[in-house]
């Protein structure tokens, strides 16, 4: 509790200092502060986009430029008010960002970043060449912003607008990261297959994140135009794009405060370089500035990729927040009647080029049972698994779930229909807490939008989702420290945590991919007990596993695969007695 109070008072002191700054600091320092605030606003968008969402963009300056040119055109050519300029800037930037996002966000990894360089350059060259925008000389005489008749021409006045906007943006982003959609954004780095397996529309989340980041750049661009009172193409070059990226990364991309720290550090560094470089190198200071800068950035990326904020945060004493107050958990769905067919796979076939990984495999899964899918390495189990969860589409055959044909359905839709899965190579978000990881599982059961999350309108639903997550952590025995980071768990517990995340989706069918791999004996026994308990609760489980002891003692029935085909099917005792299975496992040479 005291730590919370300390945080609040530190925040209050910070805000008071910010308010007092124009009366205390020299005008030049205020000008610097204005730049820091503006840059921090753009960097904040990059923190969300790159640090949180994992999408590296070199193109943020283009959005800043679109906004700056929009408002400059509105006020100088059309003689409209700066506020009309703001509306135009926001609408136009959002529109361009949505279109560019729709096109480039489907690109993967470095292709996406290259795409941002491409349209960043295209937009930059457009500024200098579009008729009516003053070509390379730009648009002069942009009027200052006025609020209620007060002109914000003086740097000591626009200062308040900049820092007010920045603090509001940070507050909104902070709320967002603690909400349903914020968690989805943080999950993006775990890869599309994990995100979609949770029922999250990965592309949609990327696109909205992208537009939010562009909007922050747009606000910065709007203020920039009215602060400098002159707009030309030069400041919106790709060079500036890398500087923004640098700010976000140096501060610690992934941390909201990293945006301010990074912007401040880079701006001040730039400023002091401008001071002392001419002293040391009187002739070539201007040229050397960018060299020193780039070299520092490279050194930073080589040795301290994490950034400053996480480094400092690591030095401060940590105090876990109190356990969440109890709340009513989210409503659960009704489980189907036990014994009825739930999943039926009919002659499923999957080819990869000439290779047939799964060849006309059929089996059925009844509600309330645990079915084991076993077979030697390379038998096609994983492919079968991917067909059921929608990660792959069958080349032929059908898969029905609860009476519905899910063969052509997207992975996300299958997740929403009630199939939850785990991964053979654990896919958790190591930097998120256990609680947040499990809450990701509740995505399909909750509704809060981006806006609701930003404005904290989602608190009631959040509390209920949190309760679900706490309950599921307790169910799997990981509730001792819900605020521990998932990456700090040993592998065995990470697997269990994945199961808790799957359970949080309130699934009808739980599909587990080698859950016992790499577990110690005791851990396996505990896992088997957990799964047996889940069966008692009426959950249906499909388990792909190598560990025969584990499978034999747990499941109701077994399907054995070999060379892509179904070898046989039966109870554990029948399977153990089957000579074909012994042959398949101990080797067929003798």
């Amino acid at each position, binding site marked *: 509790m005291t730590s919370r109070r300390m945080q609040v008072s530190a925040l209050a002191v910070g805000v008071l200092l910010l308010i007092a700054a124009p009366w205390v600091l020299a005008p030049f320092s205020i000008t610097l502060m204005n730049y820091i605030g503006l840059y921090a606003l753009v960097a904040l968008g990059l923190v969300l986009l790159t640090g949180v969402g994992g999408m590296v963009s070199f193109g943020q300056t283009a959005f800043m430029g679109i906004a700056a040119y929009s408002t400059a055109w509105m006020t100088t050519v059309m003689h409209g008010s700066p506020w009309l300029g703001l509306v135009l800037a926001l609408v136009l930037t959002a529109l361009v960002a949505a279109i560019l996002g729709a096109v480039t966000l489907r690109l993967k990894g470095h292709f996406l970043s290259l795409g941002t360089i491409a349209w960043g350059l295209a937009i930059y060259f457009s500024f200098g060449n579009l008729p009516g925008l003053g070509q390379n000389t730009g648009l002069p005489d942009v009027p200052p912003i006025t609020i209620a008749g007060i002109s914000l021409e003086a740097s000591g006045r626009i200062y308040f607008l900049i820092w007010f906007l920045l603090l509001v943006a940070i507050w909104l982003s902070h709320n967002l990261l603690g909400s349903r959609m914020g968690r989805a954004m943080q999950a993006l780095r775990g890869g599309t297959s994990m995100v979609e397996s949770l029922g999250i529309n990965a592309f949609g989340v990327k696109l909205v994140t992208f537009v939010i980041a562009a909007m922050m750049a747009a606000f910065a661009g709007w203020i920039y135009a009215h602060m400098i009172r002159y707009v030309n193409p030069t400041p919106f070059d790709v060079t500036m794009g890398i500087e923004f990226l640098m700010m976000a990364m140096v501060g610690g991309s992934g941390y909201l405060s990293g945006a301010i720290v990074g912007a401040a550090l880079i701006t001040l560094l730039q400023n002091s370089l401008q001071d002392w470089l001419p002293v040391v190198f009187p002739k070539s200071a201007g040229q050397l500035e960018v060299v020193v800068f780039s070299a520092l950035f490279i050194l930073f990326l080589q040795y301290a990729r994490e950034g400053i904020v996480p480094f400092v945060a690591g030095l401060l004493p940590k105090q876990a927040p109190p356990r969440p107050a109890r709340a009513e958990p989210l409503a659960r769905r009704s489980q189907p009647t036990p014994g009825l067919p739930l999943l039926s796979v009919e002659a499923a076939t999957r080819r990869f080029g000439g290779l047939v990984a799964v060849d006309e495999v059929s089996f059925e899964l009844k509600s309330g049972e645990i079915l084991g899918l076993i077979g030697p*390495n390379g038998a096609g189990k994983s492919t079968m698994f991917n067909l059921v969860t929608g990660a792959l589409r069958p080349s032929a055959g059908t898969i029905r779930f609860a009476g519905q044909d899910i063969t052509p359905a997207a992975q996300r839709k299958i997740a929403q229909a009630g199939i939850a899965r785990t991964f053979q190579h654990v896919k958790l978000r190591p930097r998120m807490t256990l609680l947040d990881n499990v809450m990701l599982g509740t995505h399909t059961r909750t509704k809060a939008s981006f806006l609701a999350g930003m404005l904290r309108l989602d608190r009631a639903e959040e509390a209920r989702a949190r309760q679900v997550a706490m309950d599921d952590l307790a169910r799997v025995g990981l509730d001792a420290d819900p605020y521990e980071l998932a990456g700090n768990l040993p*592998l065995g517990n990470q697997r269990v945590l994945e199961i808790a995340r799957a359970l949080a989706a309130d699934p009808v069918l739980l599909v587990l991919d080698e859950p016992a791999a790499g577990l110690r004996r005791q851990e396996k026994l505990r896992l088997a007990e957990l799964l047996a308990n889940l069966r008692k609760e009426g959950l249906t489980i499909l388990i792909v596993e*190598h560990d025969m002891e584990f499978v034999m003692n747990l499941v109701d029935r077994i399907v054995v695969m070999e060379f892509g085909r179904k070898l046989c099917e039966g109870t554990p005792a029948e399977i153990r007695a089957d000579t074909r299975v012994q042959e398949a*496992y101990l*080797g067929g040479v003798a």
Partner: protein
Amino acid sequence: MALLEIDNLTVSYGKAEAVRGVSLNVETGRIVTVIGPNGAGKTSLLTAAMGLLRAGGTLRFDGEDISQLETEKRIEMGLCLVPEKRELFADMSVYDNLLLGGFIGRHDRARVRSDMDAVFDRFPRLAERRTQKAGTLSGGERQMLALGRALMGRPRLLMLDEPSLGLAPLIIREIFHIISSLRETGVSILLVEQNARAALETADFGYVMETGEIGHSGPAEGLIHDPRLIATYLGAGH
């Protein structure tokens, strides 16, 4: 004398330990096998022995401590790994794959040529397909190419990771015959396998590995009838 001595080897991925204090020896000219189910840490063991993974513990090769040596130096000393995924150069011809197998001896053209002839003698099917792209070969042929490519480097210790993986029974039989026949070249072999019976029938000595540790070990023909082995594989209860 032991050609390879592994002493108390430990491999961890973050906090997860894949190999915990494994010690084993490969005597000169012998075939030694490490068997065990998926996830037992067998691949990590070989990868660490090759120097591709950071590991704790000591490795000695021919009496010399190689724990700190880089992978390339180990290869020059005569270690060779045929990995689980084979790692062939898929869009290059069989001939080019073999040529690159002899990369460390590339300056001696006569040696490369005679080694290549020897490989083609041992694997007539590769000779038939010398101009074919490695990626278009069948599973068994790929494994043969992987073995042939490894032999081109004149290894003293050949480490084979799951050579039977994904192969049909008949082909597995053929591959293990070939492995047996490599004995005559004097190469020592460390064979990691899930296919316990085939491996033990080929090897002189066996280690059983489970969850990162060596459970038991002994001469291969003794292990093959060991009830504890069947327990490890079919889980008939401990």
